[in-house]
């Protein structure tokens, strides 16, 4: 079985079907970029993978865990799956350090000293070791996003999900975040990125998936995806975003 397997996944909000019959396989170590228009279901897809959104049909398997099963206890899986959000979602009343050590200490039961060391290491990885005592509102958007990444990294995840993590950032702050992602990619992390950063996707991703009207419309290895789009919808999407 693949590391992530989505079989005929259906997701509805009331009368609105956001995901129709989605099939997707992801192997360990793969880096997948997911692109598409707003409303195409890309963020929803990501959120179904760690169970933030329940599915109404089909199956979602992550590392052998049946995420689609309503009775499944997803806590243990979530401790291994990191997700970074568009709006960072740092805890405003806690310092950067506490934001990062909270998960390891509360969920994994690590002692304070070990968690603190983990936090420092994670912050070093994202280049923000000196901000360890700061609060979220003292940091720029790019810094907050990097702290959010560090917060997920400190849980030693086997899979990282990124939900348009640079979309809310000022352009000049995007680069520092993408650098961190590139480093993670080099180290072999399995990553799913919903993104608008096409050049980043082409350079770093192994495979790119195009979502359209709630379906996986087209997918291909990165170079081929951008160089030779097969469906007219992807062709017109690419020409619109890559002018």
């Amino acid at each position: 079985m693949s590391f992530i397997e989505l079989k005929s996944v259906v997701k509805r909000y009331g009368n609105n079907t956001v995901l129709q019959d989605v099939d997707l396989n992801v192997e360990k170590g793969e880096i997948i970029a997911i692109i598409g228009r707003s409303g195409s279901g890309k963020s929803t897809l990501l959120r179904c993978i760690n169970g933030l959104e329940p599915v109404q049909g089909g199956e979602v398997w992550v590392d052998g865990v049946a995420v689609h099963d309503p009775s499944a206890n997803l806590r243990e899986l979530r401790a291994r799956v990191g997700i970074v959000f568009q709006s960072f979602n740092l805890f405003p009343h806690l310092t950067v350090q506490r934001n990062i050590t909270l998960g390891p200490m509360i969920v994994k039961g690590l002692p304070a000293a070990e968690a603190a060391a983990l936090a420092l290491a994670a912050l070093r990885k994202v280049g923000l070791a000196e901000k360890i005592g700061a609060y979220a509102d003292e940091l720029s958007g790019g810094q907050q996003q990097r702290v959010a990444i560090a917060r997920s990294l400190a849980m030693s995840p086997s899979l990282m999900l990124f939900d348009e993590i640079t979309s809310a950032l000022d352009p000049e702050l995007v680069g520092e975040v993408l650098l961190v992602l590139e480093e993670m990619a080099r180290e072999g992390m399995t990553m799913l990125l919903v993104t608008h950063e096409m050049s980043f996707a082409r350079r770093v991703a192994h495979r790119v998936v195009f979502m359209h009207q709630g379906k996986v419309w087209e997918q291909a290895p990165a170079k081929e995806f951008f160089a030779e789009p097969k469906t007219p919808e992807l062709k017109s999407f690419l020409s619109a975003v890559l002018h």
Partner: protein
Amino acid sequence: MSYRFQFRDVFAQKEAIADGVLVTLQLSAVTIGLGFLIGILVAVSLVYGERWLRSLARVYVEVIRNTPLIVQLFLIFFGLPGIGIRLDVMTASLLALTINLGAYTAEIVRAGIESVPKSQIEAGVSLGMTQPQIFRHVVLIPALKNVYPALSSQFVLLMLATSVVSQISAADLFHAGSIIQSRTFRDFEVYTVISVLYLCLTLLMRGGFGLLYHLVFRRK
């Protein structure tokens, strides 16, 4: 006007006044402490509880908030003996005040909990935290911070409302008024002085809560 105000007689009753102030402060402090805890418990029941618990909590809150405090007090002090529960003045006062404050606090804290953005909860869920863990580490402090003004106002209101226990002869500041009144016959002056004292207590409490905010919520 042929009346001459005689405040001096009232000021001479310093001890009665001081005793009354002390009782009012003690009553307020204990009520606030207990009522705050009850309020948090009830708020958690309202937001996170099973259906039966939510209904129970909702009934408690609605009944208390839609009936006057003095009636609740009379029911506890005069009414309970009728079914075999006889409480002394202080216990009845404390019970009535605490039950009353708990309901108002619960509504305020509930609003605070619901004001914490869903995205914060999602971040906690995604880290693998349980609901109780998320409440304790992610929700509680931001919730209380958001409703701090409403909470502290409610507590000041409570301190003023303790005056109602004078009606079952509890020895609070307001009751000191009737004692001094019977000694000096200066009705108007007595209650004017006592009212001014309440005003001072209000100002002190407001200042105290302002200071507390800076101590607890402002970063070092």
